[in-house]
């Protein structure tokens, strides 16, 4: 029992540490969100509550547009469903990363931590994810996200553009830190990564395809490429016997 508690604490601390760059990146990005929230008429409290409860950038920017337009609650629900649908795939993937006996309260809490970035480091953390790792990461990331939003509403853009610019690259750098080391060890994974990036580039530059929203692009390409890779290169069963 003691051993298990120690394990959880250790994972939590490791999550805290890896969550720091995410929190800093969020702080920079959510400033912009706060500024947008203010121009759409939200108070600092409203915007901060929104950030704490939603913890997602594209979804919140879209949500602000819906609020500003005074559209129906149904439209709000539909827009969030479409924009955030990628989390469904991430949640499916995480359901297989955690131990099958993971208790329900940890599953419920783990759901809250699924952002692009925390999902990214969570799948890269270990073969078997201990949810406390993600809990650690979210306890730095969520306050960063909420604080940045709040400051954005109150102060407007006080961070120098250079700092925002430099911090904005951190989140993408972390994605690379998650996917490249395994890709170095596996040719199939390396091929999957290169193909995904090439397809993503095509989607963003070709005339018709570039009209597809980025959330939809992620879903379509993930289903196609991960599906194709699973057909052509099924992952061998190892320690399951």
């Amino acid at each position: 029992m003691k051993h298990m508690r120690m394990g959880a604490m250790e994972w939590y601390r490791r999550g805290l540490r890896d969550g720091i760059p995410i929190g800093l990146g969020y702080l920079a990005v959510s400033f912009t969100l706060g500024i947008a929230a203010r121009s759409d008429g939200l108070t600092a409290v409203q915007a901060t509550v929104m950030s704490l409860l939603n913890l997602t950038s594209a979804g919140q920017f879209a949500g602000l547009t819906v609020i500003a337009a005074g559209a129906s609650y149904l439209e709000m629900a539909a827009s969030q469903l479409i924009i955030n649908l990628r989390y469904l795939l991430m949640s499916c993937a995480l359901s297989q990363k955690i131990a099958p006996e993971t208790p329900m309260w940890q599953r419920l809490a783990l759901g809250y931590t699924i952002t692009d970035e925390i999902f990214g480091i969570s799948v890269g953390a270990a073969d078997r994810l201990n949810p406390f790792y993600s809990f650690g990461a979210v306890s730095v990331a969520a306050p960063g996200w909420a604080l940045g939003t709040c400051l954005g509403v109150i102060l407007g853009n006080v961070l120098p553009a250079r700092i925002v610019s430099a911090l904005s690259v951190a989140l993408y750098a972390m994605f690379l830190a998650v996917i490249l080391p395994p890709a170095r060890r596996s040719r199939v994974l390396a091929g999957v990564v290169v193909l995904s990036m090439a397809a993503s580039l095509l989607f963003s530059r070709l005339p018709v395809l570039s009209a597809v929203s980025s959330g939809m692009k992620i879903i379509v390409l993930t289903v196609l490429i991960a599906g194709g890779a699973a057909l052509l290169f099924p992952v061998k069963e190892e320690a399951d016997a």
Partner: protein
Amino acid sequence: MRNVYLYILVMAAVTYLIRVLPLTLIRREIKNTFLRSFLYYVPYVTLAVMTFPAILDATGSTVSAAAGLLAAALLAWYGASLFQVACAACAVVFVIELIIL
């Protein structure tokens, strides 16, 4: 304008359900090889698609972003930690923008 908090609640409810339903409904290990393999590849595709080419538009100039991308990719390839990769990319972008902007 309708009630802002009600809007926020609708947003939060939909987003949380999307995040939590698979985690709570898929309680067992999936045995099907295709599905297992699919879910194994999902993070790599998703993260790669999100990173590129979006990273090129993330900073003040494409040049600084490309330099940050290169630095991050090299360090990540040689196994630097998340924190090191993130900090190095930020530093490279910052320095390049000091020079060119």
